[in-house]
């Protein structure tokens, strides 16, 4: 049972249905709320917190919070922008993200978000963790250096592919997306055609031997900034390099 209600985002009244999350309602209305872990069709897990908005003045993750009648939401405020920038900067320093030679450059949601938020260089010290590459699968590579722990691949394998290839293992600094096999992805029933191979927002899960096939200028965020696919009135593109 769904009811049509009205909520307001940054002073704009938009219609919503009660089974929607704030993020879904905003998307439908052409309002972009930044996000890195939420993915259409997957159960939101609220891990990245980039979608944080103010709901009646209190911070909430838009991807996990259901709409309620009369909600007053703030999305574009200087404080939220600062919060999101800090989150993105932390993601950059916690992994080893070298956009300059990463094949996901121009198609990367993390990089795209950094450009959208106007981040030049992180203010935090780089942690330079030691991370591995799992190249055991014939067609897909995992570069843990670039993983941001969004959890999309874990869920996509279960929900979309009916498999159970990925899971978190370890804690805190040693946490990583592991696979359900002792000797790497190559030992699992994972296939390059799995949806889980396509949901990674960054350059951590990559189809092999196709990197750099799309020339600079033709990549997704070369032409318009991240979020403009949702926004009714896209923002001016700052060209992603």
């Amino acid at each position: 049972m769904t009811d049509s209600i009205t909520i307001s985002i940054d002073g704009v009244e938009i219609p919503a249905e009660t089974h929607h999350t704030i993020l879904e309602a905003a998307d439908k209305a052409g309002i972009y709320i930044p996000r890195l872990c939420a993915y259409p069709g997957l159960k939101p897990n609220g891990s990245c917190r980039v979608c944080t908005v103010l709901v009646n003045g209190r911070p909430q993750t838009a991807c996990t919070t259901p709409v309620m009648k009369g909600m007053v939401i703030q999305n574009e405020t200087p404080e939220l922008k600062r919060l999101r920038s800090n989150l993105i900067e932390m993601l950059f320093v916690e992994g080893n993200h070298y956009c300059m030679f990463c094949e996901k450059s121009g198609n990367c949601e993390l990089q795209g978000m950094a450009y959208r938020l106007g981040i030049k260089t992180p203010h935090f010290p780089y942690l330079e963790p030691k991370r591995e590459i799992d190249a055991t699968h014939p067609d897909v590579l995992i570069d843990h250096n670039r993983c941001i722990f969004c959890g999309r691949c874990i869920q996509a394998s279960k929900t979309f592919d009916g498999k159970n290839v990925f899971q978190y293992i370890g804690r805190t600094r040693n946490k990583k997306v592991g696979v359900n096999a002792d000797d790497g992805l190559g030992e699992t029933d994972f296939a390059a055609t799995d949806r889980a191979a396509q949901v990674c927002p960054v350059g951590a899960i990559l189809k092999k031997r196709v990197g750099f096939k799309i020339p600079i200028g033709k990549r997704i965020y070369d032409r318009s900034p991240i979020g403009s696919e949702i926004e009714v009135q896209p923002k001016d593109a700052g060209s992603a390099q």
Partner: protein
Amino acid sequence: MANVATNGKRIVISPVTRVEGHGKVTILLDDDNKVTQARLHIVEFRGFERFVQGRPFWEIPVLVQRLCGICPVSHHLAAAKAMDRIVGGEKLTPTAEKIRRLMHYGQTLQSHALHFFHLVSPDLLFGFDADPEIRNVIGVARKFPELAVQGVMMRKYGQELIKATAGKKIHGTGAIPGGVNKNLSIEERDGFLKDLPQIVQWARSALKLAKEYTSEHLKELADFGTFESNHLCLVGPSGELDLYHGNLRAIDAGGKTIFDQVDYQNYIDYIAEEVKSWSYMKFPFIKSLGPENGWYRVGPLARINACTFIDTPEAEAARQEFKALTGGKPNAMTMAYHWARMIELLHAAEKIQTLLHDPDLQGTDLVVKGERRYETVGLVEAPRGTLFHHYEVNEHDQVTRCNLIVSTTNNNTPMNRAVEKVARDYLSGTTITEGLLNRVEVAIRAYDPCLSCATHAMGQMPLAVELRDRRGELLDRRAKGVDAR
């Protein structure tokens, strides 16, 4: 800023300005204060070979550009050529090969133009002994403004070609294993064609300047930093100059063939690298001749000396004039590098002209592949000389081993010899004079060393010249450039 420290018997020379990178020179004397040896020291950073371990092979042509901010395109193409073989795609489609060549000639044009106009022309126009305050690119811009503008514009043209073919001026992605990721649109081509006649004209006048300078100053230059050597480069199947692809040819000082049409996949059977205790940079040599006699020059002088002919008419005419000076024998003059370099500048401009009129540049067949391989070598004639990339890749597509011999390393012994010769001729007593310092700098610069690249480090590096006696006691030290230490 020159700085002389004469604490008793110590003398030192520091930063060589206008060399891309940095280094230090030690001149060794015997008991009679005669020069016995000169040593160019470069701090080698071998981090890169480790850094690429485990990385997927298709990433390497982009990743390897981090090696050097000064000649990234050479590394991009050498690595791409290596990775072509990994995917069995070394027989590129006509479009892919021509796009890569356009990128390569673009970078040759910009690199040679930068070197000649910005780094070398002050020496030629003002003389080696001119006040360093005037003897620099600002001085050139003041006294010969049109020349400075030409340098800037040619460089820009080359960079735009790189951008159009690689996607960006630095850290482009254009060359991928087995081909390229874009062609050249008609609009892009027409833009380049419009400015081309001017570029060719400027290349002609730069060549004229280098040639006339050499003939007019022949008395002074003939012996300046001059020594006989072997020469090594890639040549095409008929022995023609080919900067992008070919087989290895080596000739001796008399012009006799040492080897020819050697498939560079087997370079390891012909070239070895010697390690010396006092240098982090290796010393490559031709195996059959041994380390004592097997060292060789690379770069413009070696190429113009060793090739049979040039397949573009104006550069070929220039080559013949160049050869006439030495009666057809290889030219041994260090300062002849500049003339040879400008012959290549014009050659690159001519090649760009031919390529831009070729409809293959608008082709859409961009990538090929074939038999998978696990070990590979990629070579190009970079602006500074032959550049070797050697990789092993495992069955999981990861690089497991990497060895690079960069152009500047190939020219390691020649640069030492050039400095040694200059020191012998211009050192008097145990003091490094301003005149000697300038001449050491001029001799090293002729080789256009990319010390940034040879040391696998980025950024600027100072160069000092030190004078030491037989016991290693410092007699004098003189430094110049950003930081006289």
